[in-house]
């Protein structure tokens, strides 16, 4: 078994036009920078993307927007893209916004063999329009379907040749569920190590969910909002 690819370009090769592609990350934190760049370079078009956000103008998935390769997007918050606004108005991009917890659970459900589930989030709002609402023990819930994908592009801190992954801090976010929800999961890692180097008790995403793994060539790890506190002089 060899899941290791020599470059991000080789790892994303073969993703066809019109594919449904999940992209891990929250804001710019924990996004697969190298895989995004490599995917843009393939010139693939009409992608249906699933990601909590859409990057920012000029970085992360914002670059995919600029490349005009996204036909439809499902996420929970897309507030940082000026380009997005003009594309939605011009109807060149279809955006579906859903509650963040519903997004996370729909992705998790897809990887866990759960076709649908009931959640209280969005009852009585536009989110519930056209969906079954059912009462359990006196409370209303809306039926939400699992959200699978053809490909998932995810980012971990460290991974081994077998695809076992470990994340760092809040860069974990949507990456583990997406790993399980796609037919083909492509993981990029900052450090690619030999099996045995990761303590089995510390594995967050077991390798069974990962089909391709690549060590990222370089990382910018850009910060979206640098908030600081002042040092008090002693």
């Amino acid at each position, binding site marked *: 078994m060899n899941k290791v690819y020599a470059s991000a370009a080789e790892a994303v090769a073969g993703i066809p036009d019109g594919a449904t592609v999940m992209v891990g990350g929250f804001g710019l934190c924990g996004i697969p920078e190298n895989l995004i760049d490599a995917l843009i370079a393939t010139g693939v078009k009409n992608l249906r993307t699933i990601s909590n956000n859409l990057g920012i103008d000029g970085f992360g998935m914002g670059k995919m927007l600029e490349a005009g390769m996204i036909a439809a997007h499902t996420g929970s918050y897309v507030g940082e893209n000026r380009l997005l606004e003009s594309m939605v108005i011009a109807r060149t991009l279809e*955006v579906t916004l859903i509650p963040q917890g519903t997004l*996370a659970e729909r992705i998790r459900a897809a990887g866990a063999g759960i076709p649908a589930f009931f959640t209280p989030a969005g009852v009585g709002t536009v989110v519930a329009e056209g969906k079954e609402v059912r009462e359990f023990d006196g409370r209303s819930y809306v039926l939400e379907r699992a959200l699978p994908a053809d490909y998932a592009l995810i980012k971990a801190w460290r991974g081994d040749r077998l695809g076992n992954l470990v994340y760092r801090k809040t860069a*974990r976010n949507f990456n583990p569920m997406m790993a399980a929800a796609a037919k083909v999961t492509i993981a990029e890692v900052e450090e690619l190590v030999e099996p045995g180097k990761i303590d089995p008790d510390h594995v*967050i995403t077991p390798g069974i969910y990962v089909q391709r793994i690549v060590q990222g060539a370089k990382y910018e790890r850009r910060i979206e909002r640098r908030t600081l506190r002042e040092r008090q002089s002693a």
Partner: protein
Amino acid sequence: MPSEIDAKKRERIVRRAALELRDGFYVNLGIGMPTLVANHVPPGIEVILQSENGMLGVGPYPFPGEENPDLINAGKETVTELPGSAYFSSAESFAMIRGGHINLSILGAMEVDEEGTLANWMVPGKVIKGMGGAMDLVASARRVIVTMEHTTRTGAPKILHRCTLPITGLRVVDTIITEMAVITVTPAGLRLDEVAPGLTPDDVQQATEARLLISDNLQTITI
């Protein structure tokens, strides 16, 4: 300067909201004004802040040079970890929210109505940004407090008979804290529990579209 007045209003709102914290609470603070509640945790009280992007035990902003791109809050701001912090996936994060494990969610509002229905995510005709985790939080936190300025910048009421904007959650708000008042949502309607020093219940009612019931035990806001 209006901005200074706003800052003082906000400070009063935030300080009053902080008095709702209880020892041992797991609390989710919304983006913007609610985040500032963390600066006013009363002495002797330990609360653990949850950030829905996958963290318990959110610490203060980092010192210059110590910021970490892999460590942010739900507002995408750089933060720090504390002894005892924990990280988890977005699915786990919303499972703990949906599962009713969050004692208190504090968030902002554009409108709240007399049934406690909240609108805070979208204004038709304006750019749609998305609801993020707000719909999940208000549906499932054990207690939901709205912190907001009592009226819009033009003085129009934000506490209404019925919300006019697309809603975030139906009958989800427990308490409204503004610079003018503390209001509790009850089955009978909105109950005015506290008024700011120097204001009368009538002043608050004038700035409120929904009819207010006056508490038998009406207090002055003390912070």
